[in-house]
């Protein structure tokens, strides 16, 4: 970024990866300068699906704007909604009933597993192995079924409302989650057999895309991308929200800083999510699933910031209120945007095939970057 822009020498090829390209999982446009197979520069061009969600939210009320945030990072839509609900609750000073808190955390962790499952399949597909994609979808499908049963939708649920959750849990919820846990435990070793242990896969991932801890912090990386470099940044541990401070789970850290470390972080994070679900699934307290709130919500004048840990990293919701029924300004600090900015730094000097692997391990979701 800090060299002169356009320092191409003779023999360099400039290719456009995207906006329609199989490896970008959406409409990301990368302009890549190549010398043979070696990458000299990666320059992202964004905005192909920018919907200006921040502007849209300025005209929606505090109840209405939550649903739009499902469309940012559609793979962890529950966690996005959760962040918004928490931020509004912070302004309203509402006490969320314990049952709602547990339900929210359960849903968050299920979403996190589902998101990592999809990432795992897509990651393997980026490297040319198609089979893991379908195997990952088998487990993800059962999470989606659970979501559909309780929330009424599979991807963009809009289940969180300020003060709790929209509906109570479905009576079958506990049974279905336990079935899922059994399925997951029966199949988890296949992940190692098919992909993790594979010599080709390990050679493709190890030592690729090294990101030092200092750079990770400086580039604003968060989530697995930063934890792969050994930066402790799990918001659930560092700035706990909801009931995460009462739960037993470990912050997963790797020190290698390469693509394989980021890969292992996500696989191990799924185990921690399973651990959280196992702690909570039999201990859902009785009571209300929603706190009593006014029909029309008005936040007091002021600024409210809420950070949560999504499947991709730190999501920040920054609401500036003028005391009305709609936010005056709202800003979403999306994890993907910062994680993308590091791509040029780590990709320089590696091969074209590595770029695909690095993009896979950064787990870019384009609507999250473009918002």
């Amino acid at each position: 970024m800090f060299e002169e822009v356009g320092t191409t020498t003779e023999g360099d090829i400039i290719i456009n990866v995207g906006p329609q390209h199989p490896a970008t999982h959406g409409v990301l446009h990368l302009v890549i300068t190549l010398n043979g197979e070696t990458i000299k520069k990666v320059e992202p061009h964004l905005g192909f699906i920018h919907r200006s969600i921040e502007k849209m939210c300025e005209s929606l009320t505090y109840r209405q704007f939550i649903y739009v945030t499902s469309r940012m990072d559609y793979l962890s839509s529950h966690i996005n909604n959760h962040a918004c609900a928490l931020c509004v609750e912070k302004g309203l000073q509402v006490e969320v009933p314990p049952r709602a808190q547990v339900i929210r955390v359960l849903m968050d962790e299920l979403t996190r597993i589902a998101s990592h499952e999809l990432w795992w399949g897509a990651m393997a597909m980026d490297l040319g192995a198609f089979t893991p994609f379908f195997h990952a979808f088998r487990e993800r499908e059962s999470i989606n079924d659970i979501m559909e049963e309780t929330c009424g939708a599979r991807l963009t649920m809009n289940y969180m409302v300020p003060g709790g959750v929209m509906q109570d849990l479905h009576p079958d919820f506990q049974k279905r989650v336990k079935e899922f846990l059994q399925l997951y435990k029966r199949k988890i070793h296949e992940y190692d057999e098919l992909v993790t242990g594979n010599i080709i896969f390990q050679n493709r991932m190890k030592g690729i895309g090294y990101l030092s801890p200092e750079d990770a912090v400086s580039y604003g990386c968060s989530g697995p991308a930063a934890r792969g470099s050994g930066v402790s940044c799990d918001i659930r541990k560092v700035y706990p929200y909801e009931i995460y401070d009462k739960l037993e789970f470990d912050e997963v850290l790797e020190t290698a800083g390469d693509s394989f470390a980021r890969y292992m972080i996500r696989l191990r994070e799924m185990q921690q999510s399973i651990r959280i679900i196992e702690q909570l699934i039999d201990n859902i307290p009785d009571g209300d699933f929603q706190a009593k709130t006014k029909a029309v919500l008005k936040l007091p004048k002021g600024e409210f910031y809420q950070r949560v840990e999504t499947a991709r990293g730190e999501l920040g919701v920054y609401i500036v209120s003028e005391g009305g029924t709609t936010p005056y300004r709202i800003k979403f600090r999306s994890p993907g945007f910062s994680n993308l900015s590091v791509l040029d730094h780590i990709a320089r000097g590696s091969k074209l095939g590595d770029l695909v692997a690095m993009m896979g391990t950064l787990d870019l979701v384009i609507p999250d970057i473009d918002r």
Partner: protein
Amino acid sequence: MFIIKYIKEVYRGVKSLLVGMKRTLYYFTHHKEIITQEYPDNRDTLVMAERFKGEVVMPHNEKNEHRCTGCQACELACPNGTIKVIFKNELTPEGKKKKAIDKLVYHLELCTMCNLCVEACPSDAIKMAQTFEHSVYDRSELTKILNNPGSKIMDGVE
């Protein structure tokens, strides 16, 4: 020693590949693991989750009566302007003029199935249906009128 390291490397690599091949062979030979749902063929047996949000409908009873009072709560709650309530004046049996809904227009093409209108409704007049095959040949078919023609409000619903 170099040569032993080299052979060990090859052995480990080949072993990891064989482990993966064993796993795929298992799935190749075990067809009961297949998870494909043959969707258009299983339409008769397909059961949607009872809370699935497909589209907004207004249930009517057998006397062609609905529960909608026309309070516009759903219209206000909707983030996209999906619902529009159109009023008419109706004469009550006592001869008084009373405001009642003429049409409850619902634009399915704008709806994001966020369930906020159903939550907002104070008289449980609308609910989510479990349909999902919404494709039509003309966009105008997606604009629906939720109340049946000639329907009235149910007695006792205020």
